[in-house]
């Protein structure tokens, strides 16, 4: 079991290193101009040269991603709880949410910027709006999935609705909540970057647009890698939390 894990981890590292090597060979052997594609080495060097304000830009994009994401988790789970408590709320708003889910959230970007101007807040909002839907939909579904016979069992000894909720419904919904959170983690990253593309004065997405005009592809590559790393950190946190809270067999694959 343990050696299997080490093997899988080793293979994962290996395939990443192979990709780096392929990238390097492609650029060097293909004599690709550096404004088209930099080598991995040149990309890494951009981290220590020039005036890119990496730390500040990472911080801004990070705040947008994590802020939008945790807002989405908080609001999404809370709304789903309300839906599970009130049939009327569920019947009123669930169809609305399903329609709104169809709206391409990215298309709302320009509007959000009209309403809230540039900056961290509107970009956080875009990340939120795109990450929110999978969370509320999967949580609501998870809260609904209770075996009727299990409810009978609890009711036969006069268990309260609150007991059903805390002992059966909520822990039962946890795997669903996490599956929504995993999808949302990917979306939140995309949302924040799209926001920065549409209008901002800081952040990794903003930086990419800045250096694009000078064909500084090394910095652009570095920015993409850093954005990806932010996403990986978020995803890793969610996976870690899931491992902590959800029993293996109950996890939704």
């Amino acid at each position: 079991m343990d050696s299997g894990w080490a093997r899988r981890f080793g293979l994962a590292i290996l395939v990443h290193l192979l990709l780096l090597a392929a990238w390097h060979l492609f650029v060097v052997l293909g004599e690709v101009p550096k404004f088209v594609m930099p080598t991995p080495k040149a990309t890494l060097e951009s981290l220590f040269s020039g005036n890119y304000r990496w730390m500040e830009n990472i911080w801004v994009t990070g705040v947008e991603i994590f802020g939008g994401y945790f807002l989405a988790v908080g609001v999404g789970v809370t709304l789903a709880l309300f839906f599970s408590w009130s049939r009327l709320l569920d019947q009123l708003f669930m169809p609305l949410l399903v329609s709104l889910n169809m709206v391409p959230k990215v298309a709302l970007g320009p509007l959000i910027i009209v309403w809230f101007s540039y900056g961290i807040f509107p970009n956080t909002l875009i990340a939120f709006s795109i990450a929110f839907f999978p969370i509320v939909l999967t949580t609501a579904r998870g809260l609904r999935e209770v075996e009727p016979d299990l409810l009978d069992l609890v009711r036969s000894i006069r268990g309260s609705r609150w007991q059903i909720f805390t002992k059966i419904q909520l822990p039962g919904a946890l795997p669903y909540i996490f599956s929504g959170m995993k999808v949302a983690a990917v979306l939140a990253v995309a949302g924040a970057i799209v926001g920065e593309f549409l209008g901002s004065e800081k952040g990794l997405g903003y930086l990419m647009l800045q250096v694009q005009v000078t064909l500084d592809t090394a910095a652009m590559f570095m920015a993409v890698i850093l954005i990806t790393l932010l996403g990986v950190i978020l995803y890793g946190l969610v996976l870690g939390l899931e491992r902590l809270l959800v029993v293996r067999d109950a996890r939704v694959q």
Partner: protein
Amino acid sequence: MPASSEPFIRIEGLRKTYRTRGEDFLAVSDVTLSIEAGELVSLVGPSGCGKTTLLKILAGLHPYDQGTVLIGNPAHPFDPARDIGMVFQQALLLKWRRIIDNVLLPAEILGLPMKAARERARALLDLVGLTGFEDKYPYELSGGMQQRAAIARSLVHDPKLLLMDEPFGALDALTREKMNIELLRIWRESGKTIVFVTHGVQEAVFLGTQVAVLTAGPARMADHFEIDLPHPRTLDVKTEPRFGEYARRIYRLLGME
């Protein structure tokens, strides 16, 4: 049978209809049964005969339209808020809880003292043959073992009445026979009154001190009778002529001769 003038469960002229889309649908009717404390009564019949409905009425989960259902007598007082244990076709264990914590669920819901309940849960896991599996998760157990855990759970709050709805219906034939023998042992050792719903005629006769035969279309109780086969029963009982006669009698009532 304990000496008591009144039966533990008395059902008389029970009838229930559901109303769906303006039409009345007969769910159960003509049920008249007397069950003594400590009996194991089989309810046997096809789908739609009302056996599950009857079980849920006994559990206090469904209202009924006509008739009487009385549970408890002076020797065995019955508290409808806590004296019911239930087992279903699916074990319905909570995947995120260890077996011992699954067994403890009813005790938690009833707010029983947990230290004593935990000891009792361990004793019950011993009783159902799951010693050493306390800290496993449900997915680590086979279907039969999960159902054993479900039986332990149904007993943890020491209910007077155990209601079982086709508890072995999802198991393979061999495991099912094994569980039947196990159930008889658990029943003898725990002394509970059990109402056992099944599709299986053989199972009904093998387990029951009494069998009630229910038919569908319309849903009604066709007959009920005692099974006069000695306890403790082993599989040998199935080869006795009387066993076959009881089974034939049930098949006849079900129109399957």
